[in-house]
């Protein structure tokens, strides 16, 4: 795109540096062709091609994401992703099997999954970052295995026994583990958000949910009273339409809460996380509007359902564009100075297992 060429920061002398806005230049119509062809190939190969489709999807989104005139890239190998998917499927089946059939084996399988998960997740971070590059320089994840067990097992356990009172704290520890251990070439990232800031967002959302619940509760009681009055008026017959209407209102309110709380939380927490992440001395600014995110999520969902899924490529592009373009890099110095690290090799197994178990922890 032509707007990019102007923002090239190659001149080393220009010092207070202008913020570098992230740009996403993909389009839904363009991505649709890639998506549907890969979907067909995935169906025809009974899912095997999905690994290649995933690489292509990530490459499409990474390569259309640009900052300071250069795009990102994804280098993951489809074969490794396929191996990871098979392993993830095996674990998923073992998990479902053990949960459904109550036997002593259940505990063994669940414990096995709990023990292996932190290691897999750490590998998944490594794989994803190692296979991400900008201007030919790769990212790296250098978190230790011990750190992963502390963040996932110990903190997870603490969260459970404190009845989720520690959930915001655990979230903060997790992001610190991820971002403090992320390197771009030989430049290290750092994370500066405090647990208190996570608690503030969690409490705000909790208060909003409670307030919403109280309102629904009152309207529910109101509905019940109206129905009772009607029963008395009509001599004992409850109008089924009134009941349906009450149920519809209740469901509608629940859905409304479900679709608005999620995006608001996501926007606030993402802003907090990225505003407090630095790449070396360079700062990052993230200013995602919760209201626009609600609008995009809701309209995407409605359109995807109405089109039986054919809108998915547009929905993905819209969401990616909005999220990515709310991020700006505030350079403290020359963006040409990053130096690559020594090459490493990392397996894809971790990442696939993590996505199958649906722990989505990325931007």
């Amino acid at each position: 795109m032509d707007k990019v060429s102007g923002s090239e920061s190659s001149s080393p002398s220009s010092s207070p540096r202008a913020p570098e806005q992230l740009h996403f230049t993909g389009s839904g119509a363009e991505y649709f062709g890639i998506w549907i062809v890969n979907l067909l190939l995935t169906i025809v190969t009974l899912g095997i091609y999905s690994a290649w489709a995933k690489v292509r999807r990530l490459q499409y989104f990474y390569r259309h994401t640009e900052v300071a005139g250069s795009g990102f890239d994804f280098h993951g190998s489809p074969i490794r992703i396929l191996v990871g998917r098979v392993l993830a499927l095996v674990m998923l089946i073992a998990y479902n099997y053990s949960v459904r059939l109550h036997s002593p084996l259940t505990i063994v399988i669940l414990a096995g999954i709990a023990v292996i998960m932190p290691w897999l997740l750490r590998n998944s971070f490594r794989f994803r970052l190692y296979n991400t590059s900008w201007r030919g320089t790769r990212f790296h994840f250098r978190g230790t295995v011990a750190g992963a067990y502390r963040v996932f097992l110990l903190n997870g356990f603490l969260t459970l026994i404190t009845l989720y009172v520690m959930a915001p704290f655990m979230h903060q520890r997790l992001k610190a583990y991820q971002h403090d251990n992320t390197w771009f070439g030989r430049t290290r990232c750092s994370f500066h958000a405090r647990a208190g800031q996570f608690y503030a967002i969690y409490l705000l959302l909790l208060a909003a949910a409670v307030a919403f619940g109280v309102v629904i509760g009152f309207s529910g009681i109101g509905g019940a009273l109206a129905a009772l009055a009607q029963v008395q008026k009509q001599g004992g017959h409850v109008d089924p339409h009134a009941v349906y209407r009450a149920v519809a209102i209740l469901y509608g309110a629940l859905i409304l809460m479900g679709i608005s709380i999620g995006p608001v939380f996501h926007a606030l927490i993402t802003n907090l996380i990225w505003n407090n992440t630095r790449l070396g001395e360079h700062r990052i600014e993230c200013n995602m509007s919760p209201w626009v995110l609600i609008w995009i999520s809701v309209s995407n969902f409605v359109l995807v359902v109405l089109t039986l899924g054919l809108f998915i490529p547009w929905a993905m592009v819209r969401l990616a564009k909005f999220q990515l373009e709310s991020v700006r890099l505030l350079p403290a110095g020359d963006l040409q100075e990053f130096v690559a690290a020594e090459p490493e090799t990392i397996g894809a197994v971790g990442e696939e297992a993590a996505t199958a178990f649906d722990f989505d922890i990325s931007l």
Partner: protein
Amino acid sequence: MLHANYFDGRSTRVRAVNLSVAGEDLIIAGEDVNFRVPFAHVKVDERLGRAPRRLRLKDGTFCEVRDLDALDTLLLSTAHRDGWVDRMQRHLQFVLFSIVACVALAAVAYKWVLPWAAAKGAHHLPPAIGKTLSVQTLRILDGKILMPSKIAEERRQALSAKFHALRLPEGGTPDSELLFRDSPQLGANAFTLPDGTIIVLDDLLTAIGDDPHTLAVFAHELGHAHGRHGLQLLLQSSAVGAFWTLYIGDISNLLAAAPAALIQARYSQDLEKQADDYGAALLVQNGMSPALLAEALKTLADSHSGSSKGGYLSSHPSTDERMRHLLLLAASFKDK
């Protein structure tokens, strides 16, 4: 001549270069870069939308090209050819074909593959699962939609005795439980739970009246129990639910199926026919005519016309066709 950015893979420095092709070689020339490599050693990334394409060299360095059309022109003079998936993704006809093919394959999977797999699965699930589901369903429905039967105790016992004395086509007697309930909402109805328990409602007994026709309805329900149609439907709906959750997202969790959906689930015409055939065979086995089932269907159809309640036949499509089929079966058995 083609403008590109050259990256050395060791730093984030951008070097503006010009690309050109001479013979078998790619020439890269620009600020402190000037070399040529055999084009056979250059890997060209596939085209993904309008994203810049990269020409990757063996040493991990690469050139990033933004002018995609000019790159295509340059590639024409080389041995490089775009991959077949790459070409399909940009080919309008193939994209349209993919839409049609995906929809068609999804339809085939839903109509044939899913019922086939669910039927297989239903026969391989441990009986304990069907039992648990049925007990839970009954616990939720009893007292809310299902009320205690008002039919005289003697008549119920007599029907139960006749039901349990039926000889099954595959040998033995029914091990299904037979429960009597009353339900103003569900009207003249009978249904089979996933573990084979048959529930018959008062309105159905009143509408049909005599025992032989009632037994014919039981024979049909035993067909559902024998084919494990309840479990099959449950597996089908869970598979569809899981698919939509994966495909579209997880908001559908809010629309989790209520247990009442179990009994109101519409058996497909295919499953009804299977149950009819089994019922007919069972009736013949017990010296009765399949015509009884046809007549029972007729009685129920008549009792439902003009009633707004969803009845036995609302979940049993095309009664006429089924009656014709059963009467045909009756005639063929008479001939033997």
